[in-house]
């Protein structure tokens, strides 16, 4: 039986085939789906900000720099092989396009941080749907690694 798990903002979840991991309403936030196609273990995280400045580190999954390494670690604990992990990413939009400074280009900064952290961890990005000015929902099928992107503005597509 496949289980559908909703990953809320600033949270993550690790699942195994045939689980479906879903994160809804990505605006400037970025969703990162990591997948090991041999063990069919997948992890999904919904980050809000690029860098964690909280000394107490109470919400590591809120930030790209602490969240992504944590997700990798939890996947390895669940049986994934670090060498096999690939990434598909979505989000980082600029929702209010008529406001250049208002939301301080946080979407763009999130994308840059996610690229950097994935590179540091030697994880290749095999699919992405980033930026622009609309919200997105990600559905991650751990059965085969497909990620469906839903949006009102651009319709549905698969990564």
């Amino acid at each position, binding site marked *: 039986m496949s289980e559908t798990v909703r990953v*809320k*903002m*600033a*949270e993550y979840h690790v699942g195994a085939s045939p689980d479906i991991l879903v994160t*809804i*309403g*990505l*605006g*400037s*936030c970025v969703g990162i789906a990591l997948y090991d196609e041999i063990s069919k273990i997948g992890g999904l995280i919904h980050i*809000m*900000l690029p860098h964690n*400045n*909280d000394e107490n580190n*109470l*919400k590591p999954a*809120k930030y790209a720099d602490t969240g992504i390494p944590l997700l990798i670690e939890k996947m390895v604990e669940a049986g994934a092989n670090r060498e096999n992990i690939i990434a598909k990413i979505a989000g980082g*939009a600029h*929702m*209010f*396009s*008529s*406001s250049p400074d*208002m*939301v*301080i280009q*946080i*979407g763009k900064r999130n994308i840059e941080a996610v690229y950097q952290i994935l590179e540091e961890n030697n994880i290749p990005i095999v699919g992405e749907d980033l930026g622009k*000015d*609309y*919200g*997105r*929902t990600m559905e991650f099928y751990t059965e085969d690694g497909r990620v469906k992107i*839903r*949006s*009102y*503005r651009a319709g549905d597509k698969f990564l």
Partner: protein
Amino acid sequence: MSDLINHLTSVQKDVLKEIGNIGAGNAATAFAQFLNTRIHMTVPSVTIVPIEDVPELTGGIETEVVSVLLKVMGESPGSILLVFSVQSTENLLKMIIDEFDIYQLGEVEVSAIKEIGNILSGSYLNAINQMTGFNLFQSIPAFAFDMAGAILSSSMLSLAENDYALLIETKFINGDEEIEGFFFYIPDPGSLEKILKSLGFDTQ
């Protein structure tokens, strides 16, 4: 400062609610005049929600909504966000524009919606200014028509470093319940303290 949210006394909450009340009263009057119809408002609530619940504030995270965001500048910066359902927006626009397609909004329709945002936030801020002696002013309005969750989370990023968001929330409803909207006043971190201080509260 983020601690203040967790340590607000009930008196301080009442004061914030009262600011919301007067602001929303002003805004409702301006709104009613603009549309030439009756607009009621609910008693504003001071809402403190965990940051991860922000996308659910107006209901369905994936529900399509229409929104206007304005940045508040001055002594206590923050944001004002208005959220209307698609149906309410259609009903609203019908009162001022003859023909349009709600899913193909043109420049005129978007301008009209932004102008409503302008009017509401302007009168809201006027009320706060009168109470506090501040000189708060607003940016030009920005418009988005998309998933509620994406809009709400992206509008409240100034709060994202905190674990909780404090919002002053009001609902506008006209008599026939044809128009229903959420009005959020979102003080930036630190602003709450300044507002309370200006009213004579010691927030230390």
